[in-house]
């Protein structure tokens, strides 16, 4: 009897240790991700993660929605400090320099070994890689990426006697059309200036032939004459031409403004496209942003990063997850569900997205615009530098400062912050 109990105990101990070792082989990944536009995007991420777990039974993914881009970065870094680190995260594409300085992430160039993986690194649209590439290495893989696009109300165009299939091509046209479109209860144009003013400004500057910073993240060009002119133009839209409301325009409520016909044109992230498509009660169109000296927009959105505090096994699992989430099929699915850009040529060659783009041509505007796209404002000390520019833009739009002096001041401040990074 005793012998039997002993044996049973032994067997159960063995079984338990066997079970727990089986559990240990299962790699657990924690991933934070942000959402900064409307729509049921968490559901799409959850369904993609579920599919991944089904195909990879040895990996357990814990995908955590972490608020907007700022929150996602803060939560990831806080988890890192608290010793409960995430292995990977989707964070702002412009967080790269700060994350490098914090020694928080590892570069993909250091992880990839095989030629096939190196090929994979080159499979994405080059414009989307700019913000994640510095010091000769790739630090981030594009995921929910966007450009600014122009949404316009075709019905309003018809009413104003304009051709609904000819949105403004350049700055002058945008003003003349905007004047025709501005009526008692409708504005011609709205460009948001809260939330991400520097982003919209990056587009105006690029259209005027300038980018806002160098690719090392150590220099800004805020006081360049072309940049100054870009801010003057933005201010003139409301102060001189009266086609845009005065004061700042709220990022969060702008889509509602457009959908309820209060503005005929709006500049916004392509990440809103599917939501606008689902909610618009009028005929709407999507166009590339107008040109001054050239067309232009910054890219935007979130990239995948892998944290440094990971075991080789976790890195391998993270790579598999990232490859899955950015595969042409999933990128296509993500793009159709949200409006974000499919991140590779292959994504647009998938039958699903091909068909979708044919039926709904606005879905390819942001991708086509990539040809004219530049990196989003990102430097060392990026939070501070960005705030300086944000405050400057808002001070000018609310009539507190003149564009030229304000930008010169901003440039001085930014140079002060960046003096140690050369």
């Amino acid at each position: 009897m005793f012998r039997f109990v002993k044996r049973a105990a032994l067997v159960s101990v063995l079984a338990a240790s066997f079970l727990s070792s089986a559990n240990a082989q299962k790699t657990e990944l924690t991933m934070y991700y942000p959402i900064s536009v409307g729509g049921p995007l968490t559901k799409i991420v959850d369904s993609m993660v579920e599919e991944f777990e089904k195909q990879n039974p040895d990996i357990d993914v814990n995908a955590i929605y972490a608020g907007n881009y700022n929150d996602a970065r803060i939560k990831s870094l806080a988890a890192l400090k608290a010793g409960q680190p995430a292995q990977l995260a989707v964070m702002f594409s412009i967080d790269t320099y700060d994350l490098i300085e914090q020694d928080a992430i590892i570069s993909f160039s250091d992880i990839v070994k095989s030629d096939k993986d190196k090929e994979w690194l080159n499979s994405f649209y080059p414009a989307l890689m700019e913000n994640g590439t510095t010091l000769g290495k790739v630090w981030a893989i594009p995921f929910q990426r966007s450009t600014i696009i122009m949404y316009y109300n075709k019905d309003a165009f018809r009413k104003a006697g304009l051709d609904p299939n000819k949105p403004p091509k350049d700055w002058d046209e945008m003003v003349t059309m905007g004047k025709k479109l501005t009526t008692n209860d409708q504005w011609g144009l709205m460009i948001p200036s809260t939330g991400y003013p520097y982003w919209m400004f990056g587009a105006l500057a690029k259209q005027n032939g300038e980018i806002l910073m160098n690719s090392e993240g150590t220099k800004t060009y805020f006081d360049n004459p072309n940049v100054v002119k870009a801010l003057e133009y933005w201010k003139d839209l409301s102060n001189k031409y009266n086609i845009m409301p005065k004061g700042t325009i709220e990022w969060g409520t702008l889509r509602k403004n457009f959908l309820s016909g209060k503005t005929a044109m709006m500049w916004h992230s392509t990440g809103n496209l599917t939501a606008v498509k689902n909610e618009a009660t009028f005929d709407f169109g999507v166009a590339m942003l107008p040109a001054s000296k050239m067309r232009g927009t910054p890219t935007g959105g979130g990239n995948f990063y892998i944290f440094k505090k990971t075991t080789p096994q976790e890195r391998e699992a993270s790579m598999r997850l990232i490859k899955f989430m950015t595969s042409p099929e999933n990128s296509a699915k993500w793009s159709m569900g949200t409006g974000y850009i499919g991140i590779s040529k292959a994504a647009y060659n998938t039958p699903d997205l091909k068909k979708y783009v044919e039926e709904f041509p606005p879905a390819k505007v942001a991708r086509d615009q990539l040809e004219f796209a530049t990196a989003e404002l990102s430097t060392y000390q990026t939070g501070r530098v960005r705030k300086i520019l944000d405050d400057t833009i808002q001070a000018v739009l609310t009539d507190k400062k003149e564009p030229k002096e304000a930008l010169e001041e901003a440039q001085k401040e930014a140079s002060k912050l960046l003096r140690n990074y050369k």
Partner: protein
Amino acid sequence: MRHVYGWLLLLPGFTLIVAFTHYPTVTTFINSFFSNQTVIRPKKFVGLSNYEYMLNDPVFLQTFKNTIYFALTTVPLSIALALAMAVFVQEKIRGRSVVRLAYFTPTILPMVAVANIWLFFYAPEIGLINQIFQYFNLPQQNFLGDTNMVLEATIVMTVWKEAGFFMIFYLAALQSIPKELNEAAKIEGASAWTSFWKITFPLLMPTTFFVMVNALINSFKMIDHLFILTKGGPDNASNLLLYYIYDVAFSFFDYAYAATLTIVLLALLIVVSLIQFGLVERKIHYK
């Protein structure tokens, strides 16, 4: 032996206070004299240079001014409104409990939800307030996009949110005032106004003091709404000290400067409570 027993009883509370109040306060104070630590650059002693930087930081000066203004307006306004509402629903009016509930509702809503609702109240063109303006042919206002109005707009929302909570305390206090006092005044021929100012109001003073302390603390720690409503903009016109501290610490990763700003906030709170408990409290009659 009995001493040991007493100290053991104190231990849990003592531990919590040291761990979450005194220890962070002391380390914050110490950190404010060091430079920020990054992986590339180690921390070093910099004396008062963080404070020097602060005094030349226009954003800090602006947020400091805003914070004081925010406290000096929200506190008296929400106290006055709370008292008025409490007196109103104390009377025997029709649908009293419904009105009481209506006044209290804002309090139980999360601040972020409140801010989201008010974002659409304030929005130009599509916002509720502007639609009412339009009906009466008043000019459209961009409440959150105008540096002259944005802080006031957040103050109005805060008062709306806070007053209902303080009303509850006043309601309880009003009910504890003996009816005989007011009846006696009535017999003597005092008007309702006189008996309110000479009897009710003085007897409410302990409550007013309690509410004031709470309102002041709330006004300094209120930042949730800024995340949704304005992000401190445009151009810092609605930025408050605590929000700026958050920005410096978690968007700029400058923990040393954030510590410096925190010390200022702490000093501000100490001064406020010294005034309250040193001067104001002496003038209050407790029963």
